[in-house]
């Protein structure tokens, strides 16, 4: 018998449905099998939001990980879904590959730390753009949102909260790192092609560049937010990063400017990168991101170098003081070089330069590099990033004491004078002369100043005296002479080239005896300071120690140790032979001797002077005067003295004597009494250099205010005629009263000048036999 159910049909149906559901659940194996097939939004969210799984909330549920709930609503605070571990569970390469980020986990944008006080996180409409976690610390979700961000034209591919185009996301917080080079920050948005292509190494390291062409420097060019190779989130290790782009600076590696080397000496932070000893890519000083405080009052380049190269600096053993150190802040154009657009060219007539010049960096007064003009700075000669420009096999030890091969020189300081003559083009010829000690004294060459040719005499830093002198000073009246006579003295390197006792005076004021107010020759102060038109005569006035032949800069004739010089070369600034150009530069009033009878080119081309040299070698002046090693101190006379009652007559009779080559030029009667003393004055005033001057001479042959009347009293041996200011005719002509080297020949009162109206009588008396016989007075 069947029992009738008490439930209504509706209730029976409901109960059956419930029992059916229950039964199904009872027989299920405790697993939500369908869940694996379900790709519902709920499950997709739970891929990261694991705590949203209802498993956790079931009573007595057993889970393999603990329940750690957070509010379901997006508070911008950190949930387990945005932990590193959750991110890594997919980004480990098996789903997406961000292993690079964890490969160098210690070089990861900091998470789990509070932003420094310098960081000001931007806000938008009162809400922070980059949320921190509950503890105010940075977490993955600070920059990323796994939900993606609508960037209007596209959807955030990296789930970044803000588009990081051109590092805009980075700069939102780190704006102080991109304020530009003037504030000591590495330039940004600058075209990297200025220094070359984007290096392959950076590309491999995952660096990014900005701009339409992906060639502009942005934060991610140097930094990788995740998986950086080194501290500071550097994309490439700190040793290599800078030189990856700045490849021309990689020579600093292993040198005394290498941070690691400096760190070993305790000079800097041992954690510095290759370049960061000197450069701080952010918040450094000045445009070169200098890591040290810059010395005020110097241009930036100098100030940078002096940061260490000072008595208290890291390079205190290599101090550069201003005394006797190569000048900086000067133009090179005074040296005969034009520098435009990076091209250096020498100009000037008397410049010997082989090949083109190597352009070196020049700077404006602030230390900024300029392509035109510009001034010298330390880094004109020195490249602080390259110890040596020599090939690898020839490079000296970068940690040893520097010499001309290294020392961070841009061009070697060598026996070819390469670096010095790259600017001092007018001194390049010294290589071909005996002032190249390699030629004249090889055993003494290269002993000073790093072995360079110029270093034999000059020291670019911390010299011993003016002109960056590198040697000792010899005897002398002034510094220039002392410099020369360190070698040109008894026992010196050039002991066989002495000037002798009877030599042209040095240390004399040119203004006292010269009528050319601005000679082309340099004058010097007593301390060796150069001056044109002002100063004293010294060795360097007549001699250019850097060029053997003044006419031919390229002459190699002086490059032989046994060659003997003459008036045409001998390091003279202006040739003294065969003409008279050098001497008359100062002794201007003597210039009309040329082509007169006293120019031996005209009257005695084969007549040797006391040294055995003819006029071609000695020049016009050199036949009578020897500038150095003269036989006689009087007028530095160059010839054998003749007979005479006073020194001046002896000079003249060196030639004008019967047995001498000008024996045919003698007065028929030379009976003017020399004993008569005259006064070389007119109206009580000295008349030297003035018309009507009749010099008289003392017993030593010196012109005196009161002295004997002798040959030069009436004759000016350097001037054929006073009537016209001109040289002679070049012909040995017979003179008359209008010329014949007579002083003031334009005036007929030559004799009357002294004798007045009695002159004609006296002339006849002394020069005519008849008159004397008639009136015998003496």
């Amino acid at each position, binding site marked *: 018998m069947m029992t009738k159910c008490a439930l209504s049909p509706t*209730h029976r149906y409901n109960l059956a449905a419930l029992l059916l559901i229950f039964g199904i659940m009872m027989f299920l194996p405790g697993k939500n099998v369908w869940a694996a097939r379900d790709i519902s939004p709920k499950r997709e969210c739970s891929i990261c939001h694991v705590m949203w799984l209802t498993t956790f909330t079931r009573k007595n549920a057993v*889970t*393999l990980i603990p329940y750690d709930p957070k509010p379901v609503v997006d508070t911008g605070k950190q949930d387990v879904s945005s932990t590193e571990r959750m991110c*890594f569970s997919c980004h480990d390469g*098996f789903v997406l590959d961000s*292993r690079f980020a964890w490969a160098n986990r210690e070089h990861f944008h900091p998470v789990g730390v509070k932003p420094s006080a310098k960081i000001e996180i931007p806000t938008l409409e009162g809400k922070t753009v980059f949320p921190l976690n509950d503890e105010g610390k940075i977490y993955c979700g600070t920059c990323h949102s796994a939900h993606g961000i609508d960037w209007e034209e596209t959807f955030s591919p990296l789930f970044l909260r803000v588009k990081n185009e051109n590092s805009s996301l980075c700069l939102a917080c780190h704006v102080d790192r991109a304020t530009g080079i003037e504030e000591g920050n590495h330039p940004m948005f600058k075209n990297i092609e200025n220094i070359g292509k984007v290096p392959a190494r950076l590309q491999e390291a995952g660096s990014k560049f900005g701009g339409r062409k992906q060639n502009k420097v942005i934060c991610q060019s140097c930094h990788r937010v995740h998986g950086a190779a080194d501290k500071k989130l550097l994309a490439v290790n700190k040793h290599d990063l800078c030189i990856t782009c700045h490849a021309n600076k990689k020579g600093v590696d292993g040198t005394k400017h290498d941070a690691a080397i400096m760190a070993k000496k305790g000079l800097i932070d041992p954690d510095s990168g290759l370049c960061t000893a000197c450069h701080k890519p952010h918040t450094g000083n000045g445009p070169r991101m200098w890591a040290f405080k810059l010395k005020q009052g110097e241009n930036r380049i100098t100030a940078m170098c002096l940061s260490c190269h000072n008595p208290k600096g890291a390079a205190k053993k290599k101090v550069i003081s201003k005394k006797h150190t190569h000048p900086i802040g000067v133009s090179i154009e005074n040296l005969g070089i034009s520098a435009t657009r990076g091209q250096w060219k020498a100009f000037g007539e008397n410049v010997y330069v082989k090949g083109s010049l190597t352009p070196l960096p020049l700077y404006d007064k602030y230390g900024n590099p300029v392509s035109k003009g510009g001034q010298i700075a330390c880094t004109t000669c020195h490249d602080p990033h390259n110890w040596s420009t020599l090939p690898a096999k020839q490079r000296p030890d970068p940690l040893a004491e520097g010499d001309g091969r290294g020392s961070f020189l841009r061009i070697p300081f060598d026996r070819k004078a390469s670096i010095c003559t790259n600017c001092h083009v007018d001194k390049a010829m010294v290589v071909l002369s005996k002032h190249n000690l390699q030629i004249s004294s090889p055993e003494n060459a290269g002993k000073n100043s790093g072995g360079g040719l110029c270093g034999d005499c000059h020291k670019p830093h911390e010299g011993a005296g003016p002109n960056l002198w590198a040697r000792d000073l010899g005897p002398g009246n002034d510094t220039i002479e002392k410099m020369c006579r360190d070698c040109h003295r008894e026992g010196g390197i050039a002991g066989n080239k002495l000037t002798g006792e009877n030599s042209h005076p040095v240390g004399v004021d040119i203004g006292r005896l010269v009528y050319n107010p601005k000679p082309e020759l340099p004058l010097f102060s007593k301390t060796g300071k150069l001056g044109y038109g002002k100063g004293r005569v010294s060795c360097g006035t007549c001699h250019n120690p850097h060029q053997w032949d003044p006419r031919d800069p390229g002459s190699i004739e002086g490059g032989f140790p046994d060659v003997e010089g003459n008036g045409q070369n001998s390091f003279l600034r202006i040739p003294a032979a065969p003409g008279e150009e050098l001497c008359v530069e100062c002794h201007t009033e003597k210039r009309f001797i040329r082509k007169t009878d006293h120019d031996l080119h005209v009257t005695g081309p084969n007549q040797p002077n006391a040294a055995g040299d003819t006029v071609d070698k000695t020049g016009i002046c050199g036949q009578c005067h020897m500038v150095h090693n003269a036989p006689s101190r009087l007028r530095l006379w160059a010839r054998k003295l003749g007979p005479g009652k006073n020194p001046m007559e002896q000079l003249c009779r060196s030639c004008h004597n019967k047995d001498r080559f000008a024996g045919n030029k003698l007065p028929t009667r030379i009976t003017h009494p020399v004993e008569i003393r005259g006064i070389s004055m007119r109206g009580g005033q000295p008349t030297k250099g003035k018309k009507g001057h009749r010099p008289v001479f003392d017993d030593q042959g010196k012109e005196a205010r009161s002295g004997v009347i002798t040959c030069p009293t009436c004759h000016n041996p350097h001037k054929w005629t006073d009537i016209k200011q001109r040289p002679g005719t070049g012909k040995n002509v017979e003179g008359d009263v209008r010329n014949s080297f007579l002083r003031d020949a334009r005036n007929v009162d030559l004799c009357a000048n002294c004798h007045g109206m009695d002159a004609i009588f006296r002339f006849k008396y002394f020069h005519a036999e008849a008159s004397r016989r008639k009136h015998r007075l003496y």
Partner: protein
Amino acid sequence: MRLSFAKPLLLLVALLLLSAVSHAATIPTKAPRHLLDLKNSSLGALLLPTDVAPGKSGQVYVVDSGNSRIAVFNRNGNATTTFGAPGSGRGELRDPIGIGIDQNGRVYIADAGNKRIQVFSADGKFRFGFPVKGETGLVKPIDVAVAKNGNIYVTGNTNHMLMVFNKSGKFLKQWGGEGTSEGQFRYPGTLVIQNGLIYIVDVLNTRVQVFTLSGKYRFDVGEWGVGPGQMFRPKGIALDKQGRAYVTDSYMDLVQVFNKSYQFVYVLGNAGKPQKFTAPAGLAIDASNRMYVTEMLSHKVSVYSLP
């Protein structure tokens, strides 16, 4: 007897509670015995090791993915050599992930970054390589396994496919595709071939799918969740001599074991507490029942003797 509607509802609640109680239990665990850790290759510390494979002569190959090289250890855990180096040239690797050993002991590397498989001799000499090129172009491989007949099976990350190449590297066929259905994948990961079946970890579908060598779907193991027997980020799979499947979970940091019937049996651990690994990924079990588990974020391979 007349029952009101409320009574069945109460009954249902009671039954539901009963049901829940019937499933409440502690985590079944079984403890492996820790033998040693492989941390340093002959060239330095391991970095993000992703997979491991025992060789034919007792050596152990570890994919030192962060260093883009393969580290070789002997059975005692001593580093013997490495091969491969970062790069894209012959024998060079870029972000490799999976590893497989063929019958002859040759080593197959899923050179993910270079989208190719590279083959080395057992002593690390480069033999040959081939691009992982499915029907739609180059694919980033995750893992590679070699069947007895020499065919090479490769899981493809970017096409969600299982690709088959002959022993020369010539593409033969592929199956799968992105999806949640049987035979489809969402990021197929490591794979292992045993007893004529291919076991493929289907990472985001949180399961292990099993196919015949010809590609016929057989069944799957595991389900989505955080409970025992469930998976959240399955990464590695290995089978022991008894046919038990060991599956790593790189988020839950544990290894779960499924029996021959592919039913969950326990979690490696002790007294109901799972043994914690740090982001475990690929794992392998050798003939002596040693288990090698890569722990990516602790940069080591843990070696255990299985229970």
